Each structure stands twice: as C-alpha cells, then as structure tokens.
C-alpha cells in the first residue's frame, strides 16, 4: 500500500524539518540568553540583546511543540519510548523553558530592583534548556542504552549544543546589533564557533564508533565519496566563518548577515548528517518509522492540513522577520 509506505516517510520529513527550524530559530534566541552578560554595566546591552529576540521567541518555541506534536501524532509508539527514557531531562528542559519565557516578560514589568533577578532567571533558564536538549540528543544518538558512557556522552553533547546555540546566538547578534555590542558578539562568535567545531568533531567520531550501523552506512563505498561532502562542507563553513569574523565589523556594516547564514548552513549540514545516520529509524536501533507510524487515515487527514497550513505559517513567519528587519532597537509597547 502506497499510503502506508509514503505517509510515515513524509511525516518523518516534516518532523525533521520542524526540529531543524526549531534548532535554528530557538537556537539563536536561547543562545542570546546564554550569552547574556551579567555585569553591572551591561544592563543596556542586555536590553538590546533581549529586544533583538523579543518579537520572535514565542513563535520560535512553537516549532518545538510542532516537532513533539508530529512525533506524538505520527509516531505514537516512538513518542512513548523516547519520552519514557527522557522523562527527567524533559521535565528539566520544561522548567528551563518556563523560566526563560516568563522572565522575558517579567523583567520589563516587575519592580526595577527585581529586574536583575529576572535577567539571571532568563540566562539560567536558557542554559538549563540548552543543556537538557543537548543531553537528550546525546542519549538519543546512543539509542538510550544505559551505563556511564551514555551519560558521559550526553553531557558532552549538552556542552556541544550549548556551544552551538551560543554560536548561532552570537551570529544573530552580529547581524542585529551595532557598535560595542556587535564587536562583543563577534568575539563571542569566534570563541563559541571553535568550541562548536570541537563538539561536532567529537560527536562525529563517537557516533559511528558506538553505532556499528552508522559506521557501515557512512563508509559504504561508493556512497562514501558523496556523503563525505557533508563533513567537508561543514568544516569549510566553520573555517570560512572564523576567517570572516576576524574581519568584522566592516565599514558600512557589510556582510554582517553572513555569519548567521553560515551557521544556519552548519546546522543544516550537521542535521542532515544525523538524519542520514539514522533514517529510517525513528528510535535508533529499536524502531523504524513504519513500525512506529499511526493509522494512514489519521496521517492523511493531518497531511492535507499541513500541506495547506505549513506554507502559510512559513509565509507569515517571513513577514514577521521582514517587519522587524534591520538592527534591533529597544522594544516599546506602544
């Protein structure tokens, strides 16, 4: 049956797309939160940094709900297994997301003497969320095997994702801010970019070593010639970005948007590499998309809606970014 074969494939594609968009979009705003400088003199910069993500963070977070939603809807069996293993980190991530989200609004509305406390909450929430997400990614890659190695790898992955989100957050700030803060962001981007590269290399080495299936897939001749383009491109993007950041900011603020695009490219490449490693498994080594999928009659009814609605969502998301284009200014409610 065509439906039973293709629908799960389409939905794993949609889910992958949501995860990727989530990692990029909420990645940069979590990254901004992680980078928030907490010094006495930094308040104005904190204001600008938070203003740069103000109109977007809520919609960015919705991609996570969509990704989890698709897993829940399309792959309920996988959803149960994954969330069973990730129960505690999920709870911690949710607490982090709650802290981050409310601190954003409270900081502007609470009494002046509480503002610093809310800024700290914002930063802590961003870090907690990111570490939890990275840890979960690590456990997922390890196929939820128990043991010390898995948890260590989870911790490593947590640090890697923290570096990655900081990297994209710093690149966002290079694009959206100016003057001193922009120069600071350039420094942050260079530093976090190097950490991120180390993290990516570490995961790339560990992943095929612990998952024999992944090793075979990557080093399967003649495909190897083609797929090794992914890490090669990724490495080039890192190098080029590092080189470019060394020359920013340029006069007239030329190329300030290039680092963000390069980091997006890096995210896309890393994500494709992960996808290539595991497809068609939805739980690595345990369950593939066809075993996990729900009934075709349910999938097709959502697919129709998704095909109509997702382009509309992308269109008005683009509209929102266009409305708030240019450098971030302080956000005033009318």
């Amino acid at each position, binding site marked *: 049956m065509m439906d039973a074969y293709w629908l799960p494939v389409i939905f794993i594609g949609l889910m992958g797309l949501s995860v990727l968009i989530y990692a990029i979009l909420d990645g940069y705003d979590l990254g901004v939160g992680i980078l928030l400088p907490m010094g006495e003199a930094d308040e104005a910069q904190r204001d600008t940094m938070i*203003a740069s993500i103000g109109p977007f963070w809520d919609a960015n977070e*919705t991609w996570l709900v969509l990704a989890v939603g698709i897993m*829940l809807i399309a792959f309920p069996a996988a959803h149960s297994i994954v969330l069973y293993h990730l129960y505690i980190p999920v709870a911690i991530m*949710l607490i982090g*997301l709650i802290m981050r989200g409310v601190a954003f609004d409270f900081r502007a*509305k609470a009494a002046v003497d509480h503002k610093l406390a809310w800024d700290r909450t914002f930063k802590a929430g961003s870090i907690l969320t990111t570490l939890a997400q990275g840890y979960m990614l690590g456990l997922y890659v390890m196929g939820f095997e128990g043991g010390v190695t898995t948890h260590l790898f989870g911790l490593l992955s947590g640090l890697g994702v923290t570096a990655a989100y900081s990297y994209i957050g710093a690149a966002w700030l290079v694009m959206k801010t100016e003057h001193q803060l922009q120069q600071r962001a350039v420094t942050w981007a260079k530093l976090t970019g190097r950490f991120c590269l180390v993290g990516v290399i570490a995961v790339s080495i560990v992943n095929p070593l612990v998952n024999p299936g992944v090793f075979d897939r990557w080093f399967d001749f003649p495909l190897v010639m083609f797929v090794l383009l992914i890490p090669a491109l990724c490495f080039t993007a890192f190098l080029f970005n590092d080189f470019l950041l060394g020359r920013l900011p340029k006069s007239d603020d030329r190329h300030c948007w290039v680092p963000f695009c390069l980091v997006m490219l890096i995210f896309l490449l890393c994500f494709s590499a992960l996808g290539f490693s595991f497809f068609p498994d939805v739980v690595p080594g345990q369950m593939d998309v066809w075993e996990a999928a729900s009934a075709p009659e349910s999938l097709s009814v959502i697919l129709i809606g998704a095909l109509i609605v997702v382009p509309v969502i992308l269109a008005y998301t683009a509209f929102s970014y266009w409305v708030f284009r240019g450098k971030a200014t302080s956000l005033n*409610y*009318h």
Partner: protein
Amino acid sequence: MLDALMLSRIQFAANISFHILFPTITIAMCWFLVFFKVRHDMTGNPVWMRAYRFWVKVFALSFAIGVVSGITMSFQFGTNWPGYMETVGNIAGPLLGYEVLTAFFLEATFLGIMLFGIKRVPNKVHTLATVLVAVGTSLSAFWILALDSWMQTPTGFEMRDGVAFPTDWVAIVFNPSFPYRLTHMLIASGLTASFFIAGISAYRILKGDVKKAPRLTLKISLLVAAVLAPTQALVGDFHGLNTLEHQPAKIAAIEGIWHTEKGAPLLLFALPDEETKTNKYAIGIPKLASLILTHELDGELKGLNEFENEHPPVAPVFWSFRVMVGLGLLMLALSWFGSYHMVRKGKMPNWMLKVLVATTFSGWVATLAGWYVTEIGRQPWLVTGVLRTEDAVTTLPASNVAFSLALYLIVYTFLLIAYIHTVFLMARKAIKEEEFETNEPQPDGNLTNINNPQDTAEGSAKA
C-alpha cells in the same frame, strides 16, 4: 507512598489547572483589546489607546505564562500517559496537530507584531495582527475543546484490536457535548477576563487614579459581564441536560443522588459519604433537581447505584459544582449592580470597588471548579467507555514522577505569586503615568506621546 498513577494524575491536574488560568484570561482579553483598538481607529479618541496600552501589557504577561505552561502540557501526554496516545492517538493526534498548525503559530507570530510592531507596520496591519491573535486564541480553544469533548462523549470512530480508528471526522469534532462545552468555556473566559479587568480598574481608581481609562474599562467590563453572566446560566443549563443524556453518572454525582429517585431535591448543602452511600446534613429544595433536569416535578433521576464502580468520586464533583454555580450567581449580581451604577451615575461607591478588587480572580476559581466537575466527573474513564485512566498511565517508577511533580509545584506556586504581584504592581505604575489629553492621535494611529519616559518599555532600562 503514592503510586505513579496517583502522582501522574496530580501532576496532570496541577499542570492543566495552572495552564488553564492564563488562556482563560487571554482568550477573551484579546477580544477586549480588539475592541479597544477598533474603537480607537474609529473615533480617534486617545483614551481607547490608553486602555489598549495598559491591557496589552497585562495580556503579554498572561500570554507568555500560558505559552510556556502549554508547552509543558504538550509533553504530558507522552511522558505520563503513553496508553492514551496508543489507544486513541489516531483521533487525539490530528486534533492536537490542527491546534498547533492553525492556532499556535498564528497567535505566536502575530503576537510579535501586535506587541512590538505598532511603529513598524501601518495601523491597519497592526489592528489586523491583533484580530489574528484573537482568532488564534479562540481557534486554539476550538480544537482543544473538541478533543476534550470527544473524550467525554466519543463518536465517529471504531475499535480495532483495542485501538480507536477514525471513521467520521465531522462526528468526531462535532461530538454531542462539544457545542455546549465550547460555548460554556468561551463565556467562562469572557466572564473571567471581565472580572479581571473590572477588578484591576477598580483597584486603580481606589488607589487614586483620576484618569478616564480605568473608568471606561470598568464600565465596559461590567457591561460585558452583565450580558455574559445570565447567558452562561442558560448555556450551563443546556450543558447539564446534555450531560444527563450522555453521562448520567456525572449528573448523579453533581446532584448527590445515591439511589435512583423520582422528584429528587436540589441539594444546597450536603456531605456526600462514599462509605455509606448517603448524604449527611443535607439541605435541599424538594423536587427542584428533577424539575431542572427533566422539566417534571416527579421526573426520575438515575442514582449512583446504577453505575456500580463506574461512577466518579462524588464529593469533589458535588462540591466543585456548587462553588462554580455559587460564583456564577455572585458574578451575575455584581455585574448587574455595578453596571447599574456605572451607567446611571458614571461611578460607584468605594465599598463596591473594594468588592470588585476582591473578586478580581473570581473567574479563575469558577473556571477551575467547572473543569473539576467535568473532568473528575468523567472518571474512572479517560475516554468514556473506551479507556480507563488507570490503563493509560506510565510504567515509570513513582520516584521520577514525584521528582517532576515537586519541580512543577515549586515553579507554579512561585509564578502564581509573581504574576498576581506584578499585575497589581503594573496597575500602581499606571496610576503615576501622565496622560497628554491635548495630544491628537496621528493619522497612522501612532500617538505622539508614545515615547514619554514614564512608559514601561519592554527590554529597556526604563522599565
């Protein structure tokens, strides 16, 4: 020691109770904001913009807490109730999916433009963004209530090997209890937002705010409540009749009827006792329950004895119902009395203002009580006749659930205190804000005084 089932139930109840507080405010408040904005666009009177500017900040705060607590909800199904999605996922999934696709993105994206875009887009686009956020919040209510109603009165599906498969999506969405429950909830949101706006406006007046805006919002919110409160009583009655038809055990628990009887009294007070299956200290009005529910004095109402081991715990349903109805009647009286004063005299006595401040969050209590009636009243079923709550729960060790529950409870308690504190703080700040009555609004809808330094500014040092 509580087991994973009980802990998961407490956790779900805590999460959803905390979450629903905020959508209950924002669903209706956004329509209030649309009204303020449209009135401003039509009349050019800056007082509407001031009302909008104050309430949009409260809205933003409430919305943010609603969003983040909602994300928690979206994980709950998978983390604690895997049996739910495994059994009815084919039906619940698409309904939740459509909520995310049609509502969440719409409201989240246009919220950015609504909150921060007024100077960046033409005024009409800003008004449209406000309308789209309001549409988004209401659409979200539509989908989630469709799902909840389907769990109460499931139709349009067939069971194959213990799993529900959809056969008729129209019957699934528009299941028998859905129209009543959706209307009941939307009006509940209207009443909650009305009393919230009235309470905070009254607080500002009591604290010495001499401006027009709080008086205007006080009057409008009370008038809206005066219309909605009696409508709610009527809708509630229809909802009750619908429940009697489809979930008679819930009605028996609500009315505290242990044994099937004719001419059942309407109990005003009683202590239902599960052990002896009787009510202690019952005070009731003879035959009234039968009259209300069957429209006959001697109408027969089925008792809990007909649903041995299939009926919900009686006391919480019985009492939640009385709290809800009691608050509903109080809101009716207050809104009529207050509207009378505001319309006839343009002001109201101080004691009445104090009463309104005291009832600022009465809608929260009534809404929660109502949800407890309907959700506890569905027990022991998770999906009526299809899936029992105990069969859907996770196999996780209880200690994991206890850990997450403790985390949530700490965070929620803290946030609730911070929220209420901050809302009243914002009201006090608004009193000090100066108004520039002389400034004319500009054609693009911007006010010349938007940059006045007293403004609370998002993301700026001035806050």
